[in-house]
């Protein structure tokens, strides 16, 4: 059994004064893929953003240890440099900033942090070309402004592409499946499966079982009203698909 990569203990967090996470406990080891499922408003995305360090998401109680260190004490960029990656549910469009050079700046920030020499343009571009194949992303998209004018599917693929380039230790995918047609979903899932590795852990935040047909998780957690109410193997996802969330204490009508 590998060492624990991420240990979340009694995590409480508020957004805009509203308490969303009300005591989350979670332990993730290297090489594992965890799925976090739950109805709308249960706090899935909040958990993902708190782990990535989004300003304004205030932790009011609890602790998160990442590689044995206090994750919550690190600013977002330091978390990224230590190997935490968040694939956004709604990737941000940034006019005027080129995707590929933004990534180069990011890669070199990571390398500098690890005490490695920066990549020059040629080495970087050959690495980018190779990783682009993982998600079948068009090279013209890579050169455009970050997410600007991308379709929903292209944005999600761009997130997975960035993940492939940045090679994180802990990848958190926030509803990467939502809004994708079946072809795009297959491409994204293939990308994620290619990136599965004993040196990496992944957290899939998802609303539907559908993604889990393509990416089989080691552990499934159910988040309801800011707490993990049940954890189990991959068969738990199927059970949820069948029975919904109400039997686990979610308010009636939860979706």
């Amino acid at each position, binding site marked *: 059994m590998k060492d624990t990569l991420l240990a979340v203990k009694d995590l409480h967090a508020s957004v805009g004064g509203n308490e969303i996470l009300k005591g989350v406990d979670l332990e993730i080891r290297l090489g594992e893929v965890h799925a976090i499922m739950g109805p709308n408003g249960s706090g899935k995305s909040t958990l993902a953003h708190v782990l*990535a360090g989004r300003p304004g998401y205030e932790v009011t109680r609890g602790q998160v240890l990442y590689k044995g260190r206090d994750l919550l004490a690190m600013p977002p*960029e330091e978390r990224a440099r230590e190997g935490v990656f968040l694939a956004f549910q709604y990737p*941000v469009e940034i006019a*005027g900033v080129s995707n590929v*050079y*933004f990534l180069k700046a990011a890669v070199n920030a*990571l390398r500098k942090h690890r005490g490695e020499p920066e990549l020059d343009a040629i080495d970087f571009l050959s690495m980018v070309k190779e990783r682009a194949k993982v998600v079948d992303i068009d090279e013209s998209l890579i050169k455009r402004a970050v997410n600007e004018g991308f379709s929903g599917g292209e944005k999600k693929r761009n997130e997975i592409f960035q993940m492939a380039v940045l090679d994180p230790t802990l990848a958190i995918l926030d509803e990467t499946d939502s809004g994708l047609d079946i072809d795009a979903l297959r491409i994204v899932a293939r990308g994620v499966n290619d990136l599965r590795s004993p040196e990496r852990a992944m957290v899939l935040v998802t609303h539907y079982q559908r993604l889990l047909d393509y990416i089989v998780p080691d552990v499934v957690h159910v988040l309801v009203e800011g707490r993990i109410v049940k954890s189990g193997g991959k068969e738990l996802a199927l059970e949820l698909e069948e029975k919904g969330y109400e039997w686990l204490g979610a308010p009636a009508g939860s979706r």
Partner: protein
Amino acid sequence: MSATAQAPTGRAEEVVRWREQYESYSASLPATEPEWLRALRAAGIAAFEEIGFPTLKHEDWRHTSVAPIARTRFARATAGAADPAVLDALTFGRAFAGHQLVFVNGRLAPDLSSAPMADGVHIRSLREVLDRQPQLVEPYLDRQAVGPGRPFTALNSAFLDDGAVVFVPAGKVLADPIHLVFFSAPGAAEPAASHPRVLVRVGRNSQAAVVESYGGTVGARYLTSEVTEVVLEDGAVLDHYRLQRESMDAFHVGALCVSQGRASRFTSHAVSLGAALSRVDIRQVFAGEGGECVLNGLFLGEDSQHTDFHTWVDHAQPHCSTRELYKGIVDDRARGVFVGKILVRPGAQKTDAIQTNKNLILSREALVDSLPQLEILNDDVKCKHGSTTGQLDPLALFYLRSRGIGEEAARALLTYAFASDVVQRIGVEAVRAGLTEQLQRRLPAAADIQEAVV
């Protein structure tokens, strides 16, 4: 008003002061000057006396106080030497050596200039033309710029002396841009004022690019009050660049007045980076059908800089189009002003105009006044305008940081990216590269982000 008339009682002291300076300047001019030229200067000082320096009560000056200019005693600029390092930066490392006129304190510096005359193209000093061939410029001087309520233009006429004449005959495409450089260097103890005038005429179906650069010795306090008059004949194409990179203690007032003939195309790139107080007016009129006007603008203000752009586009003819994009970035206690008017007259059917102003505010105390205005007196048009003023998008900042880019670098990247679409529209490679470098020098963490901009 005769030249010796007494100022009426109650006339502001500074107006009297400028009148006195005009009298002594006027007396120093050669007696051989044509009468119309003397009359033009006299009309200028008379118009200035009538208006005086505007206050915040004047509609056109509601957002910009020129009190610091009014109360400063400026001497008439005399000879000076340009600081080579500043001049080098201003001229993009002499990128336009072949077609460059350099003016120091308002007067041509022949040793720094080189502009061969060939094939009927005139790239000359206005002073030299006034001395030798005044009839060449008589039909163009004060024809575009003069109008009611323009005190600085009136002063510029009153002190008309030197500047540049760029005349391109019909059917001529100039491959290389023409660079006009106006450099202010401290001379005597008093702060000095220069009043350069630029005349540009692009003949039928001709094409040219003119770059005007304004700058001065670092830390020098002076006034540059400049007027450019442009005539585009039918089918002419002009790319015009106006790059204000004055000393941070200087005052800069400029007017760019353009008349566009039928099916002509005028593109203006106006950039303001320097000066404690800068005010630029761009006034354009479509004098013929089917013209195109593109106005791009960018300013960067920090400390307590005040940067004001007023643009006025006059759709007096049908089937013309305007595309206007102005962007401002203000930090510290800086203040920016954008007042842009597009007037569509009753006869101007099929007008197609879009005006956009976007401002980025980087500190609590910085401020931008944005007043885009469309006045449409015609119902067969396609016009829209928009204005946004705000801070850096916090979600975009988080997105960049979540990929490992430091907060300061992420801010710099987003700030530079905000400006980049205006910079990218600059067609002259040396200007674009030079400006990119200068913008990046003004922003933190530039080294990390240099390549990251589209």
